[in-house]
């Protein structure tokens, strides 16, 4: 089944590009220890999920690119075309000239309604191209104006028009010390809206990925390109084909659905995080041997300590809340085929309390700023009133409280 990706804003489009690139290059990379036939099945499954085929054989990403200014989309289109391996659809983009000015209200209340029809049309065309449609994967940031505001609007629309399909939003949590001054406002408005209209929120913090680049991968001068590539690697390993529960011969048909089923047992708890090992620089790869025990033990430690086996390690009831039995809470998805350059790798997607702390911090900072009424005039100018802010604060405090009560 196919997944349609919607990339919003500069961040969403830059990451989206890296994700498709990572997926396709993994699909073409060495098959590791699995058989040729196995490899072909894997490649076919990957292709069907994320790409559609064109006459001359170049796969076209199942993606819709949206941005309110043209530079980034143009860059991504040409980068993809230059790779020769894949490209974006010609008519899959929606672009404007002026940008959203880092203003959530502008993205949500002005750009949203104004361009609703055009954007939804492009999405519809992409969905119609799928033989069997699984759901949406929406990539956006929380800090800016387009990704956050327009992203919230589009997700809401998708909820209205495609209520039977699943939506997973990939959200980028900005650096703590600021990329955008009003990022805390934009973040709380985004999260509170998405909590209502999305099915799952997969969160990635720039700070955390920055640390991975610095400590684990030893990159000296870290660029956004490096960060996005690590992210793409993590996402790729979540979405690449794995065996379904029924048999070890067929690839899972509905990855999004299965993910949601296992990870979001209750609509109050939608925040997911991803931990992936190993991450290492190209140089170390040649000198490393992999064992499953080591990998899984490391992963469990990361989960507990939030730094980031045996599968038995994960079945410990102490890890889970009282109303879920470990056997329901923990699932293993396997595949023989190696991912990207790593002979063995493991990824853990979890719905846990650990995201509460960063959420709490953002709500706190936004609240302090709100109390002084700073920047509020920039939002009321476009129709987001103080009551809307208060609503957002209330919903997020609710989420924090629910998670804390687990």
């Amino acid at each position, binding site marked *: 089944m196919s997944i349609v990706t919607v990339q919003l804003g500069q961040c969403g489009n830059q990451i989206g590009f890296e994700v498709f690139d990572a997926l396709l290059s993994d699909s073409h990379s060495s098959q590791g220890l699995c058989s040729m036939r196995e490899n072909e099945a894997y490649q076919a499954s990957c292709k069907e999920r994320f790409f559609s085929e064109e006459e001359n054989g170049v796969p076209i990403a199942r993606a819709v690119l949206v941005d309110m200014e043209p530079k980034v989309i143009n860059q991504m289109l040409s980068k993809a075309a230059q790779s020769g391996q894949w490209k974006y659809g010609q008519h899959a983009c929606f672009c404007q000239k002026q940008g959203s000015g880092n203003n959530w209200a502008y993205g949500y209340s002005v750009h949203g309604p104004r361009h609703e029809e055009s954007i939804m049309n492009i999405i519809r065309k992409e969905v119609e191209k799928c033989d069997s449609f699984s759901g949406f994967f929406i990539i956006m940031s929380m800090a800016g104006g387009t990704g956050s505001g327009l992203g919230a609007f589009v997700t809401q629309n998708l909820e209205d028009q495609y209520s039977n399909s699943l939506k997973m939003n990939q959200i980028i949590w900005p650096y703590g010390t600021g*990329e955008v001054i009003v990022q805390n406002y934009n973040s709380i408005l985004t999260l509170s809206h998405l909590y209502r209209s999305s099915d799952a929120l997969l969160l990635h913090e720039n700070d955390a990925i920055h640390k991975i680049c610095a400590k684990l991968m030893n990159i000296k001068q870290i660029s956004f390109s490096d960060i996005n590539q690590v992210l793409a690697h993590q996402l790729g390993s979540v979405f690449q084909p794995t065996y379904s529960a029924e048999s070890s011969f067929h690839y899972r048909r509905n990855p999004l659905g299965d993910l949601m089923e296992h990870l979001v047992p209750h609509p109050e708890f939608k925040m997911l995080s991803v931990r992936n090992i190993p991450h290492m620089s190209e140089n170390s790869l040649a000198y490393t041997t992999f064992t499953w025990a080591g990998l899984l033990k490391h992963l469990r430690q990361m989960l507990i300590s939030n730094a980031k086996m045996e599968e038995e390690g994960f079945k410990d009831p102490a890890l889970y809340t009282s109303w879920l039995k470990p056997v329901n809470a923990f699932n293993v998805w396997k595949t023989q085929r190696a991912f990207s350059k790593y002979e063995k790798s493991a990824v853990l997607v979890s719905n846990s309390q650990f995201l509460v702390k960063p959420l709490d911090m953002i709500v706190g900072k936004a609240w302090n700023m709100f109390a002084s009424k700073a920047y509020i005039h920039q939002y009321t100018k476009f129709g987001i009133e103080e009551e809307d802010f208060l609503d957002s604060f209330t919903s997020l405090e609710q989420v924090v409280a629910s998670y804390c009560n687990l």
Partner: protein
Amino acid sequence: MTQSVVVQVGQCGNQIGCCFWDLALREHAAVNQKGIYDEAISSFFRNVDTRVVGDGGSISKGKICSLKARAVLIDMEEGVVNEILQGPLRDVFDTKQLITDISGSGNNWAVGHKVFGSLYQDQILEKFRKSAEHCDCLQCFFIIHSMGGGTGSGLGTFLLKSLFDIISKIDLMVNSGKLGTTVKPKSLVTSSSGALKKQHKKPFDAMNNIVANLLLNLTSSARFEGSLNMDLNEISMNLVPFPQLHYLVSSLTPLYTLTDVNIPPRRLDQMFSDAFSKDHQLLRADPKHSLYLACALMVRGNVQISDLRRNIERLKPSLQFVSWNQEGWKTSLCSVPPVGHSHSLLALANNTCVKPTFMELKERFMRLYKKKAHLHHYLQVEGMEESCFTEAVSSLSALIQEYDQLDATKNMPVQDLPRLSIAM
């Protein structure tokens, strides 16, 4: 991509403008090797086929034919504009973009504002309208003028008012000249002669150069690509927490003049430190010892996000931010460096250090006003009354008071306010 129109008013405004257009052409020439008229260059220039008579000559794509600046040149005496039209930039301007008079404003704000304002209002609006029509998507007017003279200050503020009445959607930004600040609806950038250290034959040239560079760097992230873009509307969104506190202090590193092309490359971190030092501010002010409301860093060249983060972490402890905006940084990365440099940094800050400037201004004003010195020159202009003066002073006093209140919170400990509590 959007376009911007530069409006240069008075001697100062036009001289700075001249510097700006020269630098802009150099910058685009360095980046645009193939001579194709692209989106970046269209932000400040039109591409015109000069053989076509009248208005139909605009070309939107393809090879560059003849570039015309998106500018309106206004001066109430002819000397400066004539010099521009006879100089190396004469082909960049269209005679249809000029408004000139002969006698000048005599350093009298009232003459510039009331007399020439009413005389040229229709012409001014017509030129603005025309320049807007030539744009696909006009985003911003840059208005360059001084405060000290008659035309720049008087006529400059008059046209601001008229613009504001007819175009309320578009962000207006004002860039100032030598003597400091200018009043403007959305935000304002101040600059003064404090930055210059060396002696030059034509001192104003070097200073104008700095201001022109500021304008170029401000728009660089909107014109060129980068990993973290910043558009002009993001500047006013992030740096103006309250509508009346829209005065920004800028600093530019490395500071240089056109003659100094052989400066040794500065270490990257030094560039960041310099941006916060007193000597690099384009206003005689010391932001480090005052309170920051917000700060924006626009970096150009081969600088990555880790360099930016490292320097922010390093400099943060020595700067004081207002309690509700402790991490108030807005950042952008543009991959295209300015001509002749591998990287550069423009820092824009909304900082209470502008207060002393305003206070000094008020003091100097009051000294003259108390004695009623020179007042008759103003009052004899029709439409000008004493109330204009008293209103101006009281709004300036109100502004100073706002900054005072913010400063009072400076060394207080940051307290978290009680949050909403939810019944479970």
